[in-house]
């Protein structure tokens, strides 16, 4: 499946009250393009830290559901966060990984994710559940299961490499994203 389709399906399924933290690169751009909303936070730098930011929110606001939109390159860059999240036992943290096997925003150079089962590492680290899906029907079946019980839990979605030319950069300024998420989380 295409990454855009996968992200649109997931975002459409999420409750609007959920907080979504999207990693830098094409995943942020795609989430902005497909499902922009004030509870979304798009990263432009600090690769690898979407999951760290999500953990800080999840621990500070246990009543909020926090969803990470991560990529294989981002996760591999900061694999230690799987252990950090698992050890935290944050029940309100759900980790979605869109794995296309490449660094999409730097020209499609391959990552090493084809050799590394990231969902198995999550499970071994102590995530309560971790699964991989490769088709849209399997994704739609997996989403309710993912959120049916407390996390930390991971769903890895295998997606095609390649970018849609129509997906542009996030037009909001970083400080605007900070302000609106602070406002969203103060509700």
């Amino acid at each position, binding site marked *: 499946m295409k990454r855009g389709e996968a992200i649109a399906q997931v975002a459409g399924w999420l409750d609007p009250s959920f907080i979504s*933290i999207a990693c830098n690169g094409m995943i942020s751009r795609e989430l902005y393009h497909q499902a922009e909303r004030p509870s979304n*936070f798009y*990263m*432009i*730098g*600090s*690769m*690898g*830290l*979407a*999951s*760290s*930011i*999500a*953990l*800080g*929110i*999840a*621990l*500070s*606001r246990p009543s*909020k559901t926090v969803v990470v939109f991560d990529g294989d390159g981002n996760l591999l860059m*900061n694999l*230690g*966060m799987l*252990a*950090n999240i698992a*050890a*935290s036992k944050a029940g309100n943290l759900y980790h979605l990984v869109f794995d296309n096997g490449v660094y999409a925003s730097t020209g499609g150079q391959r990552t090493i994710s084809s050799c590394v089962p990231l969902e198995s590492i999550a499970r071994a680290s102590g995530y309560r559940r971790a699964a991989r899906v490769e088709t849209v029907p399997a994704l739609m079946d997996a989403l309710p299961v993912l959120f049916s019980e407390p996390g930390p839990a991971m769903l890895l979605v295998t997606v095609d490499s390649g970018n849609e030319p129509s997906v542009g950069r996030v037009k909001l300024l*970083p*400080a605007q*994203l*900070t302000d609106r*998420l*602070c406002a969203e*989380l*103060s509700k």
Partner: protein
Amino acid sequence: MTASRSQTFLDEVEEQGYSFFTGVPCSYFGDVIQILESGARYGYVSAVREDSSIGIAAGAFLAGRQPVVLMQNSGLGVAINALVSLNQIYDIPVLLVISWRGQFGDDAPEHLVMGAILEDLFRLLQIPFAVYDTLNFRRQLAELTRTMRETRKPVALVVPREALEE
């Protein structure tokens, strides 16, 4: 019984409104972290890397907390990209409490270069800092905190050897 330096330090930090603690340890902060982890009053999120702790603290700020990140100055090198491409771009404030290993050039070899360039590095990164001084700490922390809130950027308290031990 008089309060330990570490407890006094944490009391002042708490009084300034800080309410979330994360980081990677330095032996200089052994007592501070022990207090943070000893009960429900503070809580402490042990992070796997210093840049991860910056990310965790950023999340805490977004969720309404005022975070503190503890780290050794070696970890500042790890955290630089997070500080400049997350905090300084997104206007996410944080109080960094950073030990000054290698301050006088008499530390283990791995600390000597960072120890010598630490102050220059803060200036280069445009991170306002103060070197912990027991007698003036209350004022130092108030000033750093005011700067941090006005600018919405990271500030650093640099902690020399033995300043917070015992």
